[in-house]
């Protein structure tokens, strides 16, 4: 069953998501999106993923917001008289269809927090890492162990992506860094 904390967090997340979509002013939209990210960070923390919660708070609510603000500072922020965007009903219909199709698969899902799902009980998946991570890597935090040891190359690939994104941004903006 849903707990009161989850209910409050989800209501906050849903309201801020809708507000982000409907605010006409881009700056208002960005600020509400930062609040949305922060709400999600708390949800992640409640769902026992503090590492992800911290990353979301720092990157989703922090860096992404700064990047978006820098973009509207460098471009324009059109002035509007109306507070909210008019609702685009054809788009609502398309999105409603999408939501219905995706929701129809949810009947096959296990309930939230079910400890008896295949992924949780299969000895080769979660159970293996929880039991052997400390022995094999010497790290108590299994998330760190998987991130840095078992999926070390994956994390290296992630660093390459960040580097490539930095280079791509420099090229697009035409900055001559090494000139």
């Amino acid at each position, binding site marked *: *069953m849903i707990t009161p904390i989850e209910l409050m967090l*989800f209501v906050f997340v849903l309201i801020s*998501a809708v507000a982000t*979509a409907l605010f006409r002013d881009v700056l208002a939209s960005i600020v509400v999106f930062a609040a*949305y990210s922060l709400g999600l960070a708390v949800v992640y923390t409640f769902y026992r993923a503090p590492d*992800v919660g911290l990353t979301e708070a720092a990157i989703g609510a922090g860096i992404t917001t700064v990047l978006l603000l820098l973009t509207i500072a460098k471009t324009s922020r059109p002035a509007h008289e109306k507070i909210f965007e008019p609702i685009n009903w054809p788009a609502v219909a*398309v999105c409603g269809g999408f939501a219905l199709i995706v929701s129809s698969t949810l009947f096959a899902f296990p309930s939230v927090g079910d400890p008896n799902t295949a992924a949780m009980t299969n000895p080769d998946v979660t159970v293996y890492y929880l039991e052997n991570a400390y022995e094999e890597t010497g790290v*108590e935090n*299994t998330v760190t162990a998987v991130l840095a040891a078992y999926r070390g190359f994956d994390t290296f690939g992630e660093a390459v992506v960040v580097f490539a994104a930095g280079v791509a941004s420099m090229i*697009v903006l035409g900055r001559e860094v090494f000139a």
Partner: protein
Amino acid sequence: MTDGSVLGLITTRYAYLVVVFVATVGLYMMIANQNLVKKLIGLNMFQTGIFLFFITSAYVVDGSSAIVPADGAGGPFASPLPQVIVLTAIVVGVSLTAVGLALIIRLYAEYGTLRADALREVIADE
């Protein structure tokens, strides 16, 4: 416990419904908003919906976070595997956002507009 009814869906799989809703709002922003920055915010929101899906699937009721002491005491623990994928995906996502915003700044410098419909007209007139 997998109740097949709609009521069972709402009471036991509510977090997945939030996932679908958030992804749908993100999709709506990408389709309906003409401002390119807001389209990118929508893309980010769709992404966070997927992240929430992974984190929810890692969650165990009354469990603790996946920090296992040397003697293996405690538990049940949340699954660390989806959490690691989401950590990676968040960083990759912000990289993509940065490139997208750089492209938007460049587009604005070239064409002087951030609206997708206005851009289409300007490019068609050339």
